[in-house]
């Protein structure tokens, strides 16, 4: 990217561009991925400035006004949306597991693991962040339908290798759940697989996956299933 675009991106985030310059730069961002990327980087560079601002509870009428301004709910939301909604409801019945896979796997570290009380019913969401970033991979397990929902968020597959997901029931051999790439997948849990103390793990494998049917490479992430 040129220095000029980078400076415009910096001033865009800083807020010092004029109205015309802002509009022009927003138009540029739509067509120029490097401008878009520069803005994202500057946003992150200056984001810590917001930390000392703390929080201020907005008055209750704001939320009312927002909900009133929303379009009326429609039943005609299409199958993809319905699927998402159903799966969201199922999380409450099931368990959630989120994992992180290192970008490029060059220096993998997990800085934090948090458990957040998610619902009054007592289901939990676990998230591991890599250096405070977004999780690379989210794995949701729905115990009711015995479905594993794999959603790569920022998964980086090391060049020339494959990442393979494994289900490991307590006392059982790892069972391959397939390769992880950029696409979301629903995978049925292995038949009669015990959920108690089940683990999921991701290993680095040769292209196309483990040749032996068992993990051969380093594990870059593993986590145990939470019981509600």
């Amino acid at each position, binding site marked *: 990217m040129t220095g000029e675009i980078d400076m415009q991106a910096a001033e865009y985030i800083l807020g010092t561009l004029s109205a015309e310059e*802002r509009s022009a730069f927003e138009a540029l961002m739509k067509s120029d991925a490097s401008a878009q990327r520069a803005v994202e980087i500057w*946003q992150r*560079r*200056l984001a810590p400035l917001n930390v000392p601002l703390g929080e*201020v509870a907005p008055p209750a009428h704001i939320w009312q006004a927002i909900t009133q301004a929303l379009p009326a709910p429609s039943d005609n939301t299409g199958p993809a949306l319905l699927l998402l909604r159903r799966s969201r409801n199922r999380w409450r019945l099931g368990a959630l597991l989120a994992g992180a896979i290192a970008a490029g796997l060059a220096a993998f570290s997990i800085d934090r693991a948090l458990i957040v009380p998610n619902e009054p019913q007592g289901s939990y*969401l676990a998230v591991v962040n890599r250096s405070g970033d977004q999780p690379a991979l989210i794995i949701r397990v729905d115990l009711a339908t015995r479905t594993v929902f794999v959603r790569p*968020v920022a998964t980086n597959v090391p060049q020339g290798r494959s990442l393979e997901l494994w289900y490991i029931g307590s006392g059982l*051999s*790892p069972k391959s759940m397939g390769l992880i790439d950029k696409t979301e997948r629903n995978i049925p849990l292995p038949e009669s697989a015990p959920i108690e103390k089940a683990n999921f793990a991701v290993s680095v494998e040769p292209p196309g996956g483990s040749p032996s049917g068992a993990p051969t490479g380093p594990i870059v992430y593993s986590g145990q299933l939470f019981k509600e």
Partner: protein
Amino acid sequence: MRVTGMYGGGSKPVSRFKKDSRAAAGNWTLSAQLPKEAKKPGCEDRVATLTQTDNGELVLLIDAVAAGDRDAFGKLYQRTAPKLFAILLRILRNRGTAEDALQDVFLKIWQNAGSFSAEAGPPMGWLISVARNRAIDILRRKNPAEPAATETADIFANIADTASGEEQMTERAALQHCLETLEEQARACILLAYYEGYSREELANRFGRPVGTIKTWLHRSLALLKSCLEATT
């Protein structure tokens, strides 16, 4: 906590599946057991502050909002509106304007949740961008801005204060340090712009310099910040 994986650091042995024995259908040893790590004392405390709120859950909420989920939208609002409102209040300096802007911001979030990409950056950063963009658009259309009710001179000194939680401390400490390396007036320009929404013209008035000089100051300061941050982090 820090769990170092395969190639990290070099000092820690590479984690691998280890089969202990062929008996008992195989016992498999795993590295980095998530629940064990997550249940360490102290983790629960960190959940309390918003900025500590795990990015992953915000990603899920934004995804659900993109699918038209109003419950998720309500939760997202509960989670993030106080932070966004604080930012809007600071930069717009007018409560009524900030309240209107907060409505606009959440309607935008509702409409544009589908365009959020977790790969582009953390979800809170995206939400803050929506809020700041709205605020700056409002300020740039209005002339002149209301006078600053507060001073920004020392607020940046609290960026890395642990009272605001400890997440992303490396980035916070780096920014605070790099801002400190700037000359005082150059730093004031950056802070007045970010916190109070000052335009170049307003900065020019404030410092009694031509607009062109202010632009030069800003570019020089931003370039210095960039190289300092890249060297520090």
